[in-house]
């Protein structure tokens, strides 16, 4: 059976020792040959099945990483298709780069569960396991869909919606003119469309630009550090930052009062927001900061509540506690290096909610308790088998691929206009761009176009 070629990261998305990128399908070997240069200068297409090759992966002229490539021709592979596995040095960044390069060179990103699905459909997996294969496909897709939507930032989603609305309008206009040429004329339209496409392409470009910095997605767990002033929030942040020296990007906060950093703790990606200390204040500027802190608190997936264990709790702590209902909260009793005045029991007595919190004594200053904190976060978010970060990363890549596809389609339209092609050819590529962008929003096309035609244009006998 002929199938298209798919690729994905087959190892865990952590900064582990070795990362594996798997390519499977009719053109797997060809695709790999485009980016892999073997030490022995031989091409994979001519190599024997089940051989190992040493060399490097290139993105154009740039060498990304030294790798070992495993070549398995179908049917002697997991999917029974031609398969290439690229073993690279671990590290999220490298794996990401290699996968992106593979995709640019002819493979498409695998759907969740697709390797297993192919393995099954090609008779590699025992029929008795069909049920678990089906469950796996369904659950992986469901999770991907959810995380895709959850992770999409509001600004990006509304930008994509706008571009799509612009595209749909143009398609509907062309199509109504085709359906009803005696009522709607396309006189002088190509020039207008050209300008419109230039605008839309720019907007896609700026989204793509953002995707390079991972800004399309709220990657990772949105985490907020709260506490009253001077309990050691900033030292905690610094401690976390230094812990792994793994700052991926620093996302500018919306104001100087809220600082956001992206941190990777052994594969767990946290978007950490350090907030102004929450306390009653009459100072106008300070009050804005406190308001912001409260907003962040409401949106966060994870709350790191810092208290000063060397002092007594006060009314400001109480107020913060009240706002932590039904949240994932880790209470950090900081300054464990000093004499302990406040204990876990003290906190548990304050509110009923606090029974469900997790507690940890740390010293941000001494950087003690950091690995315990990491373990705790891991437990909180990864108790299931699902690895959130893999999905988040893949989502980002999917979106990026869709944006690139859409941009390419718009280029085709410009080319068609340039070549003097008739107008009905434009809508083929415009529709393609529209559909690609729809993938980002998880929206099916359905009857959008027909509805738009009737809504916006007066046609008919």
């Amino acid at each position, binding site marked *: 059976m002929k199938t298209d070629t798919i690729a994905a990261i087959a190892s865990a998305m952590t900064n582990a020792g070795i990362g594996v990128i798997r390519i499977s399908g009719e053109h797997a070997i060809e695709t790999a040959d485009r980016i892999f240069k073997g030490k022995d200068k031989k091409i994979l297409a001519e190599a024997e099945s089940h051989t190992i090759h040493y060399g490097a992966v290139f993105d154009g002229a740039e060498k990304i990483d030294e790798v070992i490539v495993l070549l398995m021709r179908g049917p002697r592979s997991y999917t029974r298709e031609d398969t290439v596995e690229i073993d690279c040095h671990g590290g999220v960044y490298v794996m990401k780069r290699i996968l992106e390069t593979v995709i640019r060179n002819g493979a498409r990103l695998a759907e969740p569960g697709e390797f297993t699905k192919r393995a099954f459909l090609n008779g590699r997996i025992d029929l008795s396991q069909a049920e678990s294969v089906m469950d796996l496909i369904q659950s992986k897709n469901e999770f991907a869909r959810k995380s895709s939507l959850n992770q999409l930032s509001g600004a990006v989603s509304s930008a994509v919606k706008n571009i799509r609305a612009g595209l749909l309008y143009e398609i509907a206009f062309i*199509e109504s003119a085709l359906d009803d040429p005696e009522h709607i004329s396309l006189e002088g339209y190509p020039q207008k469309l050209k300008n419109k496409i230039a605008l839309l392409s720019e907007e896609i470009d700026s989204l793509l630009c953002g995707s390079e910095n991972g800004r399309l997605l709220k990657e990772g767990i949105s985490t907020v550090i709260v506490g009253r002033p001077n309990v050691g929030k900033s030292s905690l942040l610094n401690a976390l930052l230094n812990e792994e020296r793994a700052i991926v990007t620093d996302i500018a906060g919306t104001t100087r009062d809220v600082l956001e950093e992206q941190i990777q703790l052994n594969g767990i990606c946290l978007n950490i927001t350090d907030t102004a200390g929450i306390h009653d204040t009459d100072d106008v500027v300070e009050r804005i900061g406190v308001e912001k802190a409260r907003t962040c608190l409401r949106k966060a997936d994870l709350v790191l509540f810092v208290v000063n264990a060397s002092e007594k709790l006060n009314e400001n702590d109480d107020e913060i506690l009240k706002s932590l209902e039904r949240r994932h909260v880790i209470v950090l009793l900081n300054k464990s290096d000093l004499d302990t005045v406040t204990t876990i029991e003290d906190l548990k007595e304050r509110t009923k909610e606090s029974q469900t919190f997790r507690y940890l004594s740390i010293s941000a200053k001494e950087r003690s308790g950091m690995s315990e904190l990491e373990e705790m976060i891991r437990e909180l978010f990864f108790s299931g088998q699902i690895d959130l970060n893999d999905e988040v990363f893949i989502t980002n890549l999917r979106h990026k691929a869709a944006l690139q596809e859409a941009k390419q389609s718009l280029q085709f339209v410009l080319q068609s206009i340039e070549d003097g*092609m008739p107008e009905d050819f434009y809508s*083929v590529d415009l529709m393609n761009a529209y559909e690609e962008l729809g993938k980002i929003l998880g929206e099916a096309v359905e009857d959008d176009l027909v509805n738009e035609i009737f809504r916006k244009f007066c046609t008919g006998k």
Partner: protein
Amino acid sequence: MFEKKERCSTDKNRLEEHYDIVVVGAGHAGCEAALACARLGLKTIIFTISIDSIAMMPCNPNIGGSSKGHLVREIDALGGEMGKNIDKTFIQSKMLNKSKGPAVHSLRAQADKADYSMEMRRTLQSERNLTIRQAEVSELITEEENEKKKVTGVRTYSGATYHCKAVILCTGTYLRARCLTGEMITYTGPNGLMAATYLTDSLEENGVEIFRFKTGTPARIDKNSIDFSKMQEQKGDEKIVPFSFSTNPEEIQIDQVSCWLTYTNEKTHEIIRNHLDRSPLYAGVIEGTGPRYCPSIEDKVVRFADKDRHQIFIEPEGLHTNEMYVGGMSSSLPEDVQQEMYRTLPGLEHAVIVRNAYAIEYDCINPNQLYATLEFKKIKGLFSGGQFNGSSGYEEAACQGLLAGINAAMSVLGKEQVVLDRSEAYIGVLIDDLVTKETHEPYRMMTSRAEYRLLLRQDNADIRLTKKGYEIGLVSKERYDYVCEKERLIEEEIERVSKVRIGAGKEVQEFLESMGSIPLNTGTSLTELIRRPELSYEVLSAIDKERPNLSYDVAEQVNIRIKYDGYITRQKKQVEHFKKLENKKISEEFNYDDVPSLRMEARQKLKLYRPLSIGQASRISGVSPADISVLLVYMEQKK
């Protein structure tokens, strides 16, 4: 008015007859269905409320138009009648969208309505296996067979029983029809013909889900009362192209009749706005769902309030009548308002109305009860086509009638039924949309609905479908051979053209310059030159010395295939992918409850729609790609 009534006038009538197939309704769907069955050798009877209304055109006086022209060409290639009939009876012809790509060129012809109807009647009458009967079918006779309903005949209002093996329902807009003109309501079908009042109840008793749709038509105006000097004349094409692939173009170059263009204005709109309270649509009297693509003039004025004028086409209804159709101004406003409103248009100041505009409401079915074969999922042997299936338009009706007829015949003959897919024909798109998507209004064909339209052109309908028509048995061997030969000539010529080298000689450069084309730097192939937008296969004959003498239709295909090769190849690739899922069939008995991992919503939808292929399943809203993967895995396991 619509309370349950006796479905039979007498129980003493003992008349009983036996046929293979019963067709109910002799409109555009019914005629195609009946002809197909009779031509496939089955003893067929067609019922009509009035013998004089066979193939009647109660609305617009034309056949074809954007994407509808494609349907007619496809009907013709499959061995249907509509194309031939309009070729015999048209009075004006135009190829629409000529300045655009070949995929959207669309033929439209003005018909002489009376001739169209009479000519079709003649064709029906001369069909050996076909009986025409004027009667109202009032009841469907069914029996249980293996826990599934099966149709065994029909009964007429007069009490006669007609036993048969299959029934095709093509009731158009007649079922419990009512017409509205302002406050006036008549319980009639189109053109004041009798409505069919009884069949709906019988269908409902058999578990058929009924929808109520509405549509409308403009007034007809006396030609002698129109001042054409105030309108723009719309002439037909100089060179007329026939609809049917079997019509010789030379024989139809007739003198044509013109249409006329005028416009509504602010005064028109004001009158309409002032009387909206007397429009049944806006007063809430109309309960049926109307089509958005064919809005009444009151709809246009309300919904597109910013437009200060609308185009109106005045079209002749035929050579024997003084009636002119007012295209673009269908309405359900009362008679007095209609007259006032029409008279605001330039040229219509003294217009005399011959027939009023009206809206019509009628019963039809939710088409998701049908398989893509147009057979009812729950009633074996019962097929349906046309407006009864929730579509609108003569062409949409005719093509469904043809397919319903073919499949009814196939089921009686015990042969495999025919489903055209979305990559094969507009007909395939239309039927797939009807039976797979949710319907909320009468369905009209539109070119944007065909995702592979660059392949589904009107110019290649014969190449796409003649083979199918031949296999079915509706197309002669002779015609099929002609198409095979045509295909061979096209391929041969494309091959030859690719090998013709054009040097940068003086003659060539001068020729290119004269065509406004950039001169050559070095030699190139003829193929490359054909691809230039300002050139074509035809004009390049000047520098193509060895060109064989080929017919126009072969030359046209050569030109299109070379010029748009890039796009065509791209769509062919998409089709390849599409076909993979389309070719994975799902049996009618498939039990979705046996598949453990389907999501609830998907399971319910799949059980309701019962798709015939994985491809069709993937187009049902609410069925996700993951559900499709799950189905694939399940089916693989059961193999």
